């Protein structure tokens, strides 16, 4: 595998396009790219740091509109190609002026980015609100102030078991000689508009594990998923809602 990697890098100089796709296959690391949306500057700084410290690449924007613009989903610039954009997770505040996190969630779920998990953050623990968001397709709901343990847990159950989800997207469907030691299940081919992310700073995968006894994700992982396209997602939102409400 390493040999393939070196081979492709050497040849890269000669045939750039052809071997562009070989590289990511052989890279064991894949940095998770998170788009964080929050109108509060302080919160943006904190969430960015929380995500970076858990080895994520982060892009922050201050509104739902800016988020849509970044994703190329705003109506004005429909001609913008998003081939190079790869977002693995969107985390958004609920209460924002103009477009709320809920509005943003709906827009994303109705777009070509619908497969990207969306997590809602809110300072208010309103069950009806949590309910609404989960039913609209939110992956999870975090209560503010967000803690390091929350982010670690999120990253762990969303990405650590599924590290090669990204590698299978888009152009390359070649089967890998197995390099993942985490999970025996084959990664799902989830349809995605974005291409592979050739991170220039490969970071070691997060070694954190959910430390809280309330890490319900582990107990839910054996449930049959309700998401049709992605069999590696943990569990149904409503199941998770029940667990959250027990935790509260």
């Amino acid at each position, binding site marked *: 595998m390493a040999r393939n990697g070196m081979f492709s890098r050497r040849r890269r100089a000669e045939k750039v396009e052809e071997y562009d796709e070989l590289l990511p296959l052989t890279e064991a690391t894949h940095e998770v790219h998170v788009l964080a949306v929050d109108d*509060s500057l302080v919160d943006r700084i904190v969430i960015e740091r929380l995500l970076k410290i858990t080895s994520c690449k982060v892009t922050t924007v201050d509104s739902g509109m800016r988020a849509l613009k970044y994703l190329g989903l705003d109506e004005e610039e429909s001609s913008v190609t998003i081939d190079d954009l790869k977002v693995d997770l969107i985390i958004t505040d609920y209460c924002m002026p103009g477009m709320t996190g809920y509005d943003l969630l709906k827009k994303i779920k109705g777009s070509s980015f619908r497969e990207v998990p969306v997590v809602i953050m809110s*300072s208010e623990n309103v069950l009806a609100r949590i309910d609404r968001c989960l039913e609209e397709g939110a992956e999870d709901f975090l209560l503010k102030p967000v803690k*390091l343990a929350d982010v670690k847990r999120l990253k762990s159950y969303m990405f650590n078991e599924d590290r090669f989800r990204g590698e299978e997207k888009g152009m390359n469907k070649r089967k890998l000689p197995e390099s993942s030691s985490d999970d025996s299940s084959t990664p799902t081919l989830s349809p995605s508009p974005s291409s592979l992310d050739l991170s220039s700073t490969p970071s070691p995968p997060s070694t954190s594990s959910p430390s809280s006894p309330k890490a319900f994700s582990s107990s839910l992982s054996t449930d049959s998923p309700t998401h049709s396209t992605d069999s590696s997602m943990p569990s149904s939102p409503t199941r998770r809602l029940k667990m959250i409400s027990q935790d509260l």
Partner: protein
Amino acid sequence: MLGLGVERLRGDMNRLLALLFHQGVLDEQFLQLQQLQDESSPNFVSEVVNIYFQESEKLLRNLRSLLMDREFSDYKKMGVHLNQFIGSSSSIGAKRVRNVCVAFRVASEQNNRLGCLRALELLEHEYCYLKNKLHELFQIEQQRLLAAAVRYPVQH
């Protein structure tokens, strides 16, 4: 004095922190911020807190100018400022400031101008106290870093 003061300064810092926790000025979210500080981001806490101060002072100015207006009636706008203040205070662990904002918000929701004025005064007081104490904390931290640098000078 410098090199020998490291431990004493660390003690001072811990004592001040303990006091602030005891007084309910700070809560565990402040400790979360400290967890986010490391070699790659060695001044994270003071950076975030300084931004919090800037944002807070803007909010306080807005709140005061709203209330000082004799024809003031835009409680909704005040609520928006308060929500922001509550959110950012919560994010850095400024518990007492946050609680005063919450009480302030209640007065605002009741369109209680007098209650709001009282709450604003209390808020300004709490905010001042927090700012002074955090500045003190950062100062001690700076001194400790300097003292440690002197004690363990970098060898070339």
